[in-house]
């Protein structure tokens, strides 16, 4: 391909692929579509910019600032509450489940909250001990001893 042909090809490609930056001629557009332009202008007048309208009002500004400050205070207050919590945890929680059922421990539980507190402490202790309710028949025990699967009645 000679140089002239290459130049021609480049120009053709430029026209096809890279059409360059499109420039919008507004004056020309206004003249060409004057009816549509008038319609747009009138629409804008009917619906003013709400955001701008609100923000310009001083009362709205003050309310927004108050809301933000309240939110920040609430957030910090909650976090500080959480920080305080561990200091009111009593030693009783850390005791072994058996000692939670000692004479002293149960009496102090009663002094704290009556029989409900005694019930609660007792339940907590058994939960920690992991005691589960069992209702095992002799048949099941024998099966177990004989190495049989639970539930099978092969004695």
């Amino acid at each position, binding site marked *: 391909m000679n140089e002239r042909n290459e130049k021609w090809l480049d120009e053709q490609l430029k026209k096809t692929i890279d059409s360059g930056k499109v420039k919008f001629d507004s004056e020309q557009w206004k003249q060409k579509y004057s009816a549509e332009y008038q319609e747009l202008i009138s629409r804008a007048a009917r619906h003013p910019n709400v955001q701008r309208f609100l923000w310009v009002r001083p009362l709205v500004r003050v309310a927004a600032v108050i809301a933000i400050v309240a939110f920040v205070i609430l957030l910090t207050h909650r976090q500080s509450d959480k920080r305080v919590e561990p*200091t009111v945890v*009593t030693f009783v929680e850390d005791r072994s489940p058996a000692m939670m059922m*000692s004479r*002293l421990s*149960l009496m102090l539980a009663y002094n704290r909250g009556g029989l409900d507190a005694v019930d609660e402490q007792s339940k907590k202790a058994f939960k920690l001990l992991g005691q589960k309710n069992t209702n095992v028949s002799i048949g099941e025990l024998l099966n177990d001893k004989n190495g049989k699967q639970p539930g099978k009645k092969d004695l």
Partner: protein
Amino acid sequence: MRTGIKSGLICTVILVAAGQVFAYPPDNAAVLYYKAFLIMEEPNATDVNLLGQLRKGEIGVNDRIRHCLESNRKAIKEIVTATQIKNCDWGLDISEGLGTLLPHLGKFRSCAKLLGADGAVFAEKGDYRTALERWLALCEMDRHIGEDTLVTRLIGSACDSMAFDYIRGVLPKISNDCEMLERLRVRLADISTRSPSMRAAIGNDAAVWSNSLNKEGILDVVHNSDLSREDQNKAELVLRQQDNNDFCIRVVEYYKQVISRMQIAYDLPYPEAKQKLEEIYKEAENTAREKPEAVITKVLLPATNRVLTIDTRNKTQFNAVLAGIEIYIIKIKTGKLPDELPAGLPKDMFSGKDFLYAKTGAGFTLTGQGKDLDKDIVQKYEFKVTK
């Protein structure tokens, strides 16, 4: 001939021994209670709430309660058998003092709730005899739990209170059955003669505390108390700084002094006792601010004030039930309710005076003359009469 006699004797000994070995039930009710604890499916929070409402007569027996009882049928059977045994030894090692383990208390309470509700199921079916047996069994549970410690006594007392609530609820249904009422009266009278004493339990606790307040015991009290970790550490520091022996002696002396004053106050008539106990508490609290040895007493002091009211309330409720039964019997015998309260009936324990008796459209009421100062009310018991 001789061989025959020998063989006969040996056989007799074997049979007698076998009878002892395989005797059922055992002569210790606690064995059966512990057995019941193992097989019991403990009611959850919702069930407990429903059982409470059933006891107060706010609801009837519903499917959920029935299901809860059915899944505990075997446990209830063991409890009923246990209540028929005279002796009950829980195997507590009281010598361990403050550290004596009482693991049976929580389960015991659950068993009592199931037993009470089971009686309500029988009552709903119209089998009042069995229902009453169940509720009288609750009173036997109270005798079995004993008076070794104040906590056990309070739990026993709660069993009694539950029984009286249920019995009072069923009285209108049996108000025309003289024989059943008379039998109930005899059984309740018998139970009242075997009542464990709240005061004795306070004394038992006091004796154990006094003997256990050495340095380790005091530290145990501090660690079990409601004090924050920071305060516990402070108390521990104070203990280390004090001359151990001297300090422990001072702790025990102050404790003994306060508790003996409390015991004396406990025997006064209810309003005076209440006031006196309040004064002792306040005084102990003030002293605890000045003297380190008084802090331990403050932590250890039983809630005697509350205990006194519970005790008085229970006795009053029991007396109201007994008085109510008497009035029902009079009604059956004379054909009408008496116009005035018959003489010699059990009294309101808040005032130490007779109940105020009033006939109503539905039956009659017995009202106390003294205030239940914890609830700030005068206890009033309604008894309906079945037409």
